[in-house]
């Protein structure tokens, strides 16, 4: 048994000793675990560790209840001041008890101990302390609190800017902050699921259960979600009777009926965290968070997209802390949480208690504490005559009632006493020794989801709380979330909302009989802060925002709620101010002497509780997010030792290295030379390929391409240029006519999807009357480019004998269907990107691997070499073909020297706009080639500058788009866009590249460096 109660320095020193593994004591022996009651399984003891020490808990515990059962009160240090912190709440609103859960790659920071379901072997460590929880060096931050109060980020570290990155930020991150991320890839998987229902019920407390039952009995498809690992909400935490039975038992029978209804789906451990348009809700299901590791194939968490016709929000309410000096001491706890620990977990959160509340909720707390055998030292209530029921309850259990307020908590690592000031004798301070203070500042309806679509919560003076304002379409709110406090009201409100929701979906609901409930008081008188002179009075526990910070914000003019929030960071922690927002707003209202509605209301945004990014990503991680596309010839290229590069999703061979190569350039030069002198083969399967058929296919292509396509004879191919409607070039490619009504189009690899989308738009929207059908066949055909003087010789060995592919029968720009290798269907195109005699051969993808192997085998005696993207690029630059660097979205056909392709005889997309005066301006940068006449290196992106001109944007005359070393010519060859273009052939310019520190003299020339007459193409 660990006694965490001591606060002596000796205890702190002991923390430096190596951690001793203490054997876990049987939980039954714990003086803090009640012998009977609760819904924990006393026959299922579980071992867990916290900060390296072993403890025992029970199945049904949360980490928080198990720690309390072991007498552990101190569980963390606060964000800014490193104040010792304990457990404040019993649910997802917990601001203090944040721990790092699990170890290694599964380590998860900032996990709320109050919702972490205990499992065998759970390992948690406290966070934000150094070197240990008990002795934290950073607690000196508290002494500097005048410096790090509200706005300190804005004021203190303003100058100089470079200090921020190097000094301030690392320092702040070490001193303030929360847990550490795992820093390793998450080994678990996450998934997404979709569900549709008539009625979504959020929350399974009394209102939610009744709503689900009413709708479910009517036959509606119901989804009931609860963030807890047990259904029942506050029914599990309260000691009330319904129909003469304990309320938890009564809930059990309702749950059994719900489970028997075939159209009701019940999701526990599932937090609905966001409300979206059109009845769409997002929820996170913690499928395996209660297991040490998920079973094989089990996701860790699952994100649900739930589409609901109607929704009943029955999310309950969150209790507010009271604001007084040192109200953050471990042992100061919300009253409702005290009852949850007593009644649900059978845990005594303390041994001597004081109750401090401004509302009638104190009655239940007093009675439950007494029933658990905890001595209640005093009951403090600021209300006078209105506190009658509380005074009576105190009397009943023999506890002193004080009309007054707790002004200060005493103690360090745990609560030792509270100082109370009575209304009758304010000068006389009363001190009550205690290790537990059960406080209640009233309850705030959980309006969060009701405001996700912009509805502003509305203030209710009677309830001293915000209730839901305008609701998202299809949502209704029931129970405490609607401000219907009191069990009877919750049950009735839930039943009504459930029946109405089912009715809206066409299911007639019979009224659900209301069970018998005793009367209950729900009176409240607002108390937003106790005016204490000593001790920090915390409003936002998680972000360490105190009353003084709000006062400072008020003095400095940050009074509007959104300013207050940002200036003080109130409500901006991971709990989004669930316990803090209303208190903070109300204190600002007091300071400015305005009403709360006039001060503002906080609207909430998703998520309701933190959601791991991994869960939102689901399976879309790594290659499942960005898959790799492989060509049919990939395995072959891999066997050849290809170095691959990513182009879009594709992996393409960049070059084929060989032993002895000094660099990629050796391989590239070898591949270019082999192709130019003999024959080379390149996998071009990644080109976009579109198959078009129909009587209007030619007409359709005429309208899409700048050049005419309907005039293309069957059996011929044509280079095609496609413009955007604004006159700029969209893409280039080839069009082949296989039959009168059958065309085959290729696009560049990069623009394959865009061109397909463009064609779809043009056909569906602009010209739906044209008789044309088309489909992308990029994946269906493997395509290889066979280039070089010996290309035909290789091909003749492959193409079946009945097809004549001689130069006469199959000339330059011929296209047709052939068979290869004894009957494999193929399409053959005599088109060339390299400038050599070249063919592209297209075969069904399943033959792609066999065909590339057959090509290489047939070409081996002729010296064939595979070539990759580098060699492809070098040959295209040598030949002066435009590529992606030139078709960059800012160039026109005229800019690229392709104006002769633009038809003047027909209309097509982009025709009129390409003729805009600005696009015809003579000084537009236009396509040129250049040679290096200096000795420096040149890279794409270098700017053309007149010789002797000062480097400035004004003197900029264009830029280098592509540059390569030509092994054929033995020097650098480059392409670029230069003002005036081909009118400037022979001029000397500078290729100025300040980014890389280069400045080289060049000479402008024709872009076609190799075989300008095109004799080789036609050979």
């Amino acid at each position, binding site marked *: 048994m660990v006694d965490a109660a001591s606060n002596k320095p000796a205890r702190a020193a002991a923390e430096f000793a190596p951690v001793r593994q203490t054997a876990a004591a049987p939980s039954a022996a714990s003086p803090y675990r009640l012998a009977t009651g609760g819904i924990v399984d006393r026959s299922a003891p579980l071992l867990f560790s916290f900060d390296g020490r072993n403890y025992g808990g029970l199945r049904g515990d949360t980490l928080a209840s198990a720690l309390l059962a072991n007498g552990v009160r101190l569980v963390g240090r606060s964000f800014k001041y490193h104040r010792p912190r304990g457990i404040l709440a019993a649910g997802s609103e917990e601001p203090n008890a944040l721990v790092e859960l699990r170890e290694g790659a599964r380590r998860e920071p900032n996990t709320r101990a109050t919702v972490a379901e205990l499992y065998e072997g759970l390992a948690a460590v406290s966070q934000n302390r150094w070197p240990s929880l008990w002795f934290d060096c950073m607690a000196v931050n508290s002494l500097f609190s005048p410096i790090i109060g509200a706005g300190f980020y804005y004021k203190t570290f303003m100058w100089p800017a470079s200090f921020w990155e190097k000094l301030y930020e690392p320092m702040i991150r070490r001193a303030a902050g929360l847990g550490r991320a795992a820093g390793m890839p998450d080994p678990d998987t996450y998934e997404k699921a*979709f569900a549709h229902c008539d009625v979504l019920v959020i929350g399974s407390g009394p209102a939610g259960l009744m709503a689900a039952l009413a709708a479910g009995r009517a036959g509606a498809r119901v989804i009931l979600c609860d963030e807890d690992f047990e259904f029942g909400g506050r029914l599990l935490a309260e000691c009330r009777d319904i129909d003469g039975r304990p309320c938890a038992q009564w809930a059990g029978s309702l749950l059994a009926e719900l489970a028997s209804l075939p159209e009701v789906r019940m999701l526990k451990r599932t937090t609905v965290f966001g409300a*979206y*348009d*059109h*009845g*769409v809700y*997002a929820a996170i299901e913690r499928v395996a968070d209660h297991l040490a590791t998920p079973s094989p194939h089990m996701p860790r968490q699952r994100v649900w*997209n739930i*589409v609901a016709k109607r929704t009943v929000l029955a999310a309950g309410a969150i209790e507010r802390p009271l604001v007084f000096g040192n109200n953050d001491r471990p042992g100061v706890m919300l009253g409702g949480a005290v009852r949850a620990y007593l009644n649900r977990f059978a845990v005594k959160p303390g041994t001597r208690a004081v109750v401090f509340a401004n509302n009638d909720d104190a009655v239940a707390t007093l009675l439950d504490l007494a029933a658990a055998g905890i001595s209640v030292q005093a009951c403090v209530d600021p209300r006078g005559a209105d506190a009658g029921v509380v005074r009576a309850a105190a009397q009943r259990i023999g506890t002193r009632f004080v009309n007054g307020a707790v002004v200060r908590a005493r103690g360090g690592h745990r609560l030792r006493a509270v100082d109370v000031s009575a209304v009758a004798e304010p000068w006389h301070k009363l001190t009550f020794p205690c290790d537990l203070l059960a406080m209640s500042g009233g309850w705030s309806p959980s309006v969060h989801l009701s405001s996700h679509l912009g509805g502003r919560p509305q203030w209710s003076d009677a309830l001293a709380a915000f209730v839901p304002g305008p609701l998202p*379409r299809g949502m209704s709110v029931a129970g405490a979330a609607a401000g219907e406090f009191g069990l009877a009201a919750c049950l009735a409100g839930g039943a009504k909302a459930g029946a109405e929701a089912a009715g809206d979906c066409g299911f007639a609901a019979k009224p659900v009989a209301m069970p018998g409930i005793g009367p209950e008081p729900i009176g409240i008188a607002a108390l937003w802060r106790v005016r204490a002179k000593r001790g920090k009075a915390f409003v936002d526990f998680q972000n360490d925002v105190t009353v003084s910070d709000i006062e400072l914000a008020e003095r400095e003019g940050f009074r509007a709620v959104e300013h207050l929030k940002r200036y003080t960071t109130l409500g901006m922690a991971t709990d989004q101010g669930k316990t803090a927002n209303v208190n903070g707003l109300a204190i600002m209202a007091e300071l400015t002497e305005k009403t709360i509605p006039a001060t503002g209301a906080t609207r909430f945004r998703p998520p309701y509780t933190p959601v791991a990014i991994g869960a939102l990503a689901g399976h879309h991680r790594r290659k499942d997010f960005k898959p790799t596309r492989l060509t049919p010839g990939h395995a072959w290229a891999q066997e050849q030792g290809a170095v691959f590069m990513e182009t879009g999703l594709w992996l393409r061979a960049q070059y084929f290295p060989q032993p002895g190569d000094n660099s990629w350039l050796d391989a590239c030069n070898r591949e270019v030379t082999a192709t130019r002198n003999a024959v080379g083969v390149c996998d071009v399967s990644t080109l976009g390929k579109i198959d078009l058929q129909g009587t209007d296919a030619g007409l359709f292509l005429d309208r899409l391409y700048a050049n005419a396509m309907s005039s293309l004879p069957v059996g011929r191919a044509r280079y095609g240029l496609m413009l955007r*409607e*604004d006159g700029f070039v969209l893409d280039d490619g080839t069009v082949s006519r296989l039959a009168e009504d059958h065309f085959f189009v290729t696009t560049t690899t990069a623009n394959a999807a865009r061109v397909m989308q463009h064609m*779809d*738009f043009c056909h*569906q*929207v*602009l010209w*739906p009357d044209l008789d044309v059908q088309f489909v992308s066949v990029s994946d269906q055909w493997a395509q290889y480019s066979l280039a070089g003087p010996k290309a035909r010789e290789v091909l003749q060995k492959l193409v079946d004998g009945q097809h004549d592919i001689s130069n006469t029968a199959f000339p330059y720009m011929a296209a047709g269907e052939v068979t290869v290798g004894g009957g494999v269907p193929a399409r053959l195109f005599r088109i060339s990107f390299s400038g050599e005699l070249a063919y592209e051969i297209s075969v069904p993808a399943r033959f792609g691997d066999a065909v590339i192997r057959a090509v290489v085998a047939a070409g081996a005696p002729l010296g064939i070499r595979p070539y990759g993207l580098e060699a492809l690029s070098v040959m295209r630059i040598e030949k002066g073909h435009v590529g992606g660097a030139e078709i960059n979205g800012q160039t026109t056909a005229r800019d690229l020297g392709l104006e002769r392709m633009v038809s003047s005889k027909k*209309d097509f997309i982009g*025709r*009129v*706009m390409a003729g805009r005066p600005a696009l015809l301006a003579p000084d537009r940068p236009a396509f040129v080639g250049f040679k290096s006449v200096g000795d420096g290196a040149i890279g794409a992106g270098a700017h053309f500058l007149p010789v002797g001109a000062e480097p400035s944007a004004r003197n900029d005359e264009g830029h280098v788009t592509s540059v390569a070393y030509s092994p054929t010519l033995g020097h650098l060859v480059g392409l670029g866009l230069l003002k005036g273009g081909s009118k400037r052939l022979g001029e000397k310019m500078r290729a100025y590249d300040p980014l890389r520190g280069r400045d080289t003299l060049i000479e402008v020339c024709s872009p076609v460096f190799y075989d300008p007459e095109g004799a080789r193409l036609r050979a």
Partner: protein
Amino acid sequence: MLLIPCPYCGPRPEIEFRYAGQAHVARAADPSALSDAEWAQFLYLRDNPRGRHAERWRHTNGCGRFFNCIRDTLTDKIAATYRIGETPPDLAAGAEARR
């Protein structure tokens, strides 16, 4: 997240769709007859209403069809969807398609 009723497939989640610009922007039968101002209007100028807006959407990850959609830019309510080439339905008197 919107639930968009594709006129071909029925209501489907927004992630299956892609926005495709303002609807009913007709391409002229004779583009060369347009004035510069008409070209500017056709190419660049789009409505930006606070309220109902006729839009083109495409059921990209579904049937692949473009269609028209009348969406309220303020509330995201979808008043109607209809096929390309069909005239917008009469939405007076608050007549709205099912959600």
